[in-house]
């Protein structure tokens, strides 16, 4: 599975990458520091899953998700938001923007595995 992980924190990208490897999804992982960089990568590459942060400089995760969902090329790619934004109204906002599932930092490998399986199941 080809996955893009979008987070301005190099620490979080490293933690997500290491966790993906641990749970068996580490074959092909592409990284981006913000939504704008991710859109640039996606314009030339296909992915099976997007894992994105919310609060990022340049282009935040919510704007990124809305742009992805507005583009017919990507509108069915599952998106998991991994963020510190844990208030109920934030989760509703993200789901309305087009996020398929939501993980609040910090998270366990088991939670990430379950969320990936859930969204990939939805895709099937």
């Amino acid at each position, binding site marked *: 599975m080809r996955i893009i992980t979008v987070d*301005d*924190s*190099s*620490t*979080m990208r*490293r*933690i997500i990458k*290491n966790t993906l490897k641990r749970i068996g999804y580490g074959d092909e992982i592409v990284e981006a520091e913000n939504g704008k960089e991710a859109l640039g990568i996606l314009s030339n590459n296909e992915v099976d899953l997007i894992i994105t942060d919310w*609060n*990022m*400089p340049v282009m935040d995760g919510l704007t990124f998700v809305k742009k992805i969902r507005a583009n017919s090329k990507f509108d069915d790619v599952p998106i998991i938001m991994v*963020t*510190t*934004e*844990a*208030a*109920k*109204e934030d989760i509703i906002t993200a789901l309305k923007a087009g996020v398929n599932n939501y993980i*609040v*930092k*910090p998270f366990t490998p088991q939670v990430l595995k379950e969320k990936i399986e859930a969204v990939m199941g939805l895709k099937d």
Partner: protein
Amino acid sequence: MSAKLSVEWVNPFIVATEEILSTVAMIEPKRGKLLLKKDNTVEYDVSGIIGITGEAIGSIALSFHKQTAIKVVSNFTGEEVLGIDADTADAIGELTNMIAGRAKKLFSEKGVKLKISVPNVVIGKNHTISSPKSTPTIVIPFESESGDFAIQVSLVPNKSED
């Protein structure tokens, strides 16, 4: 909540700090006595700072001495850290982000809506963090097996949001 900065405005940050650091950095911080900061006498080597807006305005800072930061970040990332570099600073920023995000949720449960900025990290031996005179700062020192650290909450209720 009270219109003045009081314990009820600070408690969510204390709870969030204890929860996040015990979960991701495997330390059990013990809270010391809260101090109302009157001058720049609280000095640290690395601080993560996040701005807060919404129904309150101000900032939260998570501040460490060098050796404490090295131990906490090593535990957090699972990789041995030898000094304060760009990766260590990024990790401190992310820890601050997690604490602010958790506190934001706790405030939300009390009906107080806040917004948080992306983190900035300051590195400098014995630096201090200043806030406007109109914004009181409460310093919450913690002790842990990895060393001492502190959070500094500078916050005023935002009357324009009433």
